[in-house]
């Protein structure tokens, strides 16, 4: 396991992502940040917290998406980790939605997340915000808002660690799965 980004570099990347999200959402009235479980959820929670503190004038909804049921590799994996509930308790019709995830790689989780959101309604706009864009897309999907770009070989996995789940912060390169 090789460290790619230090704690401070992760902090700076989150800061850039925060600014990009803030700039992207002017003029929109119904705004929602939806994090993809597990680490996208934590990033979204942190960003929502900061937005509510610094931009009290905006009314920001906050949701969590579990995409397990929508994955296209369900039948290829062995064993089932615990599925957790999706928490979206507001109407997403005509909303401006920022979908938050930690890493975008093949684009398949984002595809699954778009399908899942589609079952809840018809948002006006969906933007994709990721902490790390590591390249290697297999689907025509692009991140609109990015904390930091990294180029990593396809044979390796980029893992983001956050203190809420991992006890430390950083970005690491792992030998694949």
């Amino acid at each position, binding site marked *: 396991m090789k460290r790619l980004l230090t704690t401070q570099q992760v902090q700076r990347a989150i800061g850039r992502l925060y600014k990009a999200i803030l700039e992207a959402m002017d003029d929109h009235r119904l705004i929602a940040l939806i994090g993809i479980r597990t680490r996208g959820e934590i990033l979204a929670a942190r960003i929502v*917290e900061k937005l509510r503190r610094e931009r009290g004038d905006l009314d920001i909804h*906050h949701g969590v998406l579990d995409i397990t049921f*929508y994955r296209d590799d369900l039948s290829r994996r062995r*064993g*089932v980790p615990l599925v*957790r509930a999706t*928490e979206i308790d507001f109407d997403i019709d005509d909303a401006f939605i920022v979908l938050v995830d930690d890493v975008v790689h093949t684009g398949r989780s984002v595809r699954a997340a778009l399908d899942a959101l589609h079952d809840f309604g018809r948002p006006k706009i969906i933007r994709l915000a990721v902490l790390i864009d590591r390249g290697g897309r297999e689907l025509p999907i692009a991140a609109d808002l990015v904390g930091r770009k990294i180029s990593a070989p396809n044979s390796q996995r980029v893992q983001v660690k956050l203190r809420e789940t991992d006890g430390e912060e950083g970005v690491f390169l792992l030998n694949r799965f």
Partner: protein
Amino acid sequence: MAKKASSSSTGSRPTPAPAPKPFVWTRKDLLGLDELSAEEIRHLLDTAESFREVSTRSIKKVPALRGKVVALLFFEDSTRTRMSFELAASRLSADTIVFTAKGSSVAKGETTLDTVRNIEAMGVDVLVVRHAQPGAPHLLARKVRASIVNAGDGAHEHPTQALLDMFTMRQRLGRIEGLQVAIIGDIAHSRVARSNIIGLKKLGAEVVVVGPPTLVPSAITAMGCRVSHSLDDILGELDVINMLRIQFERFGTNLFPSVREYSRLFGMNADRLGRCRKNVLIMHPGPINRGVELTSDVADGPNSCILQQVTNGLAVRMAVLYLVTQGQP
């Protein structure tokens, strides 16, 4: 920087995810609670919790089992269990086919195993089986490759009913461990009672079975539960009262002197409810014989969770179908 946890100031929800559990489900069949560990039962209940949310959406469907086929094989009659499984399968986007023994090849003398092999040969992924013969799903699980879900085998087990009962207890009372649960009625012939006793004991509840001696075999204590022949003696100490249906269609009233006497000694009514703990939970797997096991005011009152059990049954069966299809070893 690290001193402020994000959970404290983002409001009450959504809650941040705890560290992912290492536990992984690997079973391809659900035959009974007897073979499951406490951890597996908890995993099933936790998964069902996630599926409950799907039924609250405007589009009550997820694509988890898209392209899979679930066959419902009911060698024995059932309405609600079959409908519940059928709806659970369709909420997961699976296709369903239904087989009932009446008017089928069973009437022509085909064996159960041949019937099931023929249905499996059509390309079925999950077989939900109800059969009058105890152990029939276990036999099938050894002989076919598809996942087998036991939807009731004779007087042996009815795992999904016990799971939905425990799910409802956990939802209403917040826990299962330490609960005092009474199961009342025809314990001798009840698969619901057996699965409930097994599951509840594994999760740390205390179980007492109640009924006339003809319906409560004394050997049942080997399963780790107490026996009582007087409901009135134990009323005040119970957290949950699970009333079983008297199966008149099977036994008539041969096992006790009269329906009236049974109801007077073992039926729940307003008077008995008044002597229970205030938030005692009244359960019934249905269909109710109104005025026999329960009076209408109790069945429809605030302590009753009978309809909630039905709703939860859907989430539990979705979780079961999902887990067995993903759990292929």
